[in-house]
């Protein structure tokens, strides 16, 4: 009896140990249970590629200013050999790079870590009243008509600006508007036109430029908005839609009519702004707190490992979850597969290819492999050389698929290399034997069964939260181990046995 209870004690201990460590980290060290969105950070990088022209070269770049929505927490410049100075005032910051002589193309980097900031920031000082623009005929009278029209439809600066943007968008057929809209194409030009109209009513306005921090992008687009002074506040308008208010993801970079980067004695070859989401800041906060507290338990997380190692362990630590699924499928449902844990390895490969493409690639390789295997059977090769031949064929097939898909310009085929080739070869070998001994149907059915198990395992290990958990809370695997131990003592019926032995479920056999 003692041994009968031992597994239960062990299982409970493991689950408790894992659960308590998890709880300790969450409650005492403040690690977030779920990957939280509020504390997210962005890595913003501006990359300026310049080409020498003659003499000393200068380059300048406007830097993000503190404003409502986001705040720059950390920034750095990479510009070897260049002298760097930064101009800074309340509402404008600019970096200046200078070098006496520029030889060859150079790349200048500006990197900033940007965090969400919910505090309201003053946007700009109270502006001066703009001068009324002096226009020639026929523009002057058209403008007067146009302003009159908009004025009757609006009550204050805010609605006036909104009406202007609305008209710019929706009444291009009206003769007055048409006159102004003739040369106007880009949203930026729309905004400039709106500024001119606002100025005739002496309403201060300015252009505001920035980027959207929504997802990782290599080349972020610059979006411009129109800021209008209503007497007390700056109001932001989308010049294209007329919609008022700053979109949540919009990070204001600079304002006014300046361009983002400028050069003298050089040419700008390329200017690229890239955006990358980073690990949650509350997580960083928690791990920084851990370091301060010098807590041993808090150190049990992959966050302290180098990034590449982290991603390797992330995959490794997901394996037990896949295996848990296999245990359930085999001992509770009663499914069987070629190779006990082969489906988990296939599922790991699916992580790179995505499910549907992964299944197609897998079926393609296995069926082509089977064709070759049947041919090899006729050559009467000995077992080990034959297996070796199958492995080699699988490798060649994988290469062929990669080359072919590269030619077609799809990237899916390239990820085929992550398939476990030895496992696939064994599946091919087993399938061909079952094919000969028990028939094609059995073989295909069992092959599809393996694929089904792989898909189910994949659907579990591809849950985002799990990936986060194994990185931050590797101890969840103790819980998995506890569960596996407990499942190991399940001696009840398997689901398929209810069908298999259904005749024995009679009342009185």
């Amino acid at each position, binding site marked *: 009896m003692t041994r009968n209870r031992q597994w239960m004690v062990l299982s409970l201990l493991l689950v408790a140990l894992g659960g308590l460590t998890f709880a300790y980290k969450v409650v005492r060290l403040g690690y977030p249970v779920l990957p939280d969105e509020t504390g997210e950070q962005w890595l913003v990088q501006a990359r300026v590629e310049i080409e020498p022209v003659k003499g000393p070269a200068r380059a300048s770049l406007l830097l993000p200013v503190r404003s409502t929505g986001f705040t720059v927490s950390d920034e750095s410049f990479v510009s070897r050999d260049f002298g760097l100075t930064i101009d800074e005032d309340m509402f404008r910051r600019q970096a200046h790079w200078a070098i006496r002589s520029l030889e060859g193309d150079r790349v200048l980097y500006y990197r900033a870590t940007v965090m969400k900031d919910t505090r309201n920031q003053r946007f700009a000082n109270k502006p001066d009243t703009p001068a009324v623009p002096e226009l020639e005929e026929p523009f002057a009278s058209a403008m007067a008509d146009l302003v009159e029209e908009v004025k009757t439809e609006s009550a204050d600066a805010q609605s006036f600006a909104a009406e202007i943007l609305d008209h710019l968008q929706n009444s291009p057929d009206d003769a007055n508007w048409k006159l102004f809209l003739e040369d106007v194409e880009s949203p930026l030009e729309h905004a400039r036109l709106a500024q001119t109209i606002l100025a005739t009513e002496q309403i201060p306005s300015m252009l505001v430029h920035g980027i959207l921090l929504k997802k990782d992008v290599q080349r972020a687009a610059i979006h411009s908005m129109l800021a209008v002074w209503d007497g007390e506040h700056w109001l932001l308008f989308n010049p294209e839609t007329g919609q008022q208010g700053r979109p949540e993801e919009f990070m204001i970079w600079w304002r006014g009519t300046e361009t983002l980067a400028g050069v003298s004695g050089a040419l700008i070859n390329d200017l690229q702004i890239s955006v990358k989401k980073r690990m949650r800041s509350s997580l960083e906060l928690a791990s920084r707190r851990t370091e301060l507290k010098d807590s041993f338990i808090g150190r049990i997380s992959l966050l302290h490992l180098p990034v590449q190692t982290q991603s390797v362990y992330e995959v490794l630590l997901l394996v037990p979850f896949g295996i848990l699924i296999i245990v359930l499928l085999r*001992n509770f449902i*009663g499914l069987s597969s070629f190779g006990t844990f082969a489906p988990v390895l296939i599922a790991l490969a699916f992580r790179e290819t995505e499910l549907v493409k992964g299944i197609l690639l897998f079926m393609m390789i296995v069926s082509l492999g089977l064709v070759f295997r049947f041919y090899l059977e006729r050559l*009467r090769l*000995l*077992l*080990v050389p034959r297996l070796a031949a199958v492995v080699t064929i699988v490798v060649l097939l994988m290469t062929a698929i990669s080359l072919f898909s590269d030619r077609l310009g799809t990237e899916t085929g390239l990820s085929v290399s992550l398939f476990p080739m030895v496992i696939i070869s064994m599946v091919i070998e087993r399938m061909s*034997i079952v094919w000969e*001994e*028990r028939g094609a149907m059995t073989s295909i059915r069992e092959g599809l069964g393996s694929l089904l198990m792989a898909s189910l395992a994949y659907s579990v290990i591809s849950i985002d939260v799990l990936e986060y958990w194994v990185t931050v809370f590797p101890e969840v695997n103790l819980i998995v181990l506890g569960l596996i131990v407990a499942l*190991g*003592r*399940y*001696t*009840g*019926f*398997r689901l398929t*046995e*209810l*069908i*298999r*032995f*259904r*005749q*024995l*479920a*009679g*009342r*009185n*056999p």
Partner: protein
Amino acid sequence: MDSIVKRMRSNGVLGLNRRNGDYILKMNNRKFFPLVDDKVLCKERLQERGLAVPELIAVASYMQQAARLGELVGQHKEFVIKPAHGSGGDGILVIKDRKSDYFVDSDGNLVKPADLEHHITNVIGGLYSLGGQPDVAMIESLVHFDPAFTGLTYHGVPDIRVIVYSGYPVMAMVRLPTRESHGKANLHQGAIGVGVDMATGITVGGVSGNSPVSLHPDTGSEITGFQIPHWSRIVSMAAQCFEAVELGYLGVDIVLDQTHGPLILELNARPGLNIQIANRRGLRHRLDAVDNLGELQERPEQRVEWACHTFGDPQSDLLTQAPW
């Protein structure tokens, strides 16, 4: 579904998980597994105990031996090639005859010597062994089954599977080869399993795959109510295997040879559960009955007597009350 589980449990149906966890893991000591998993070793062991087995003609352990087929099989016209570590009947090749240079398999197909050699190299290479370990091919004499079975079998040799628990024969079935099973007596390859009354050795209804049958699909003969010859010797031999290999939960496969009588074909440390369907009974009540004995009887004859008495079906009423 819950009630199905309950009824199956009350009927004593044994599932794979419980078989593995409560019987094989507990009753079968790992160190004795090689005795049954290696058919050559097993044969020697049984012979030492004076138990009858089919004659071993040769063992091929090296690839080179496969090429010298003549030396291996000599003048034998009929023989069976088996992987010593095979399972589930895979890799068994039955040769019934020779015609000039060719061999004839159980289906009557001609087999080239090269095919035979290839088969032997596959066996030695470990194609059919558990975990792909290198194996040896054993060649043993073909059993000529007792003519009593003529109407009940299609090619191949029918065999009798007895489950021996702690030395007590608790349940038995006859496995009848069919066209579908290619003369092999393995249920998952399409052979028919027929339950046997422990007391009398009379068959009590069959199963093909997982569904019940009462006629042999190829010969059309009635498969129930058939008296298995040499029944008492069969159960007694099965019971003695316990002493030979010391496995508490054991499947004993016995064939009836025309001239030599019952021969032990092989032992199985992980016998399947279809025997329950063939007998239309669960195993657990019988296993529990043995467990409840407390002290086990030492002499095989005593155990056989107790088991046949306890598990025998006095009315053989299964035929009349079959629920389907």
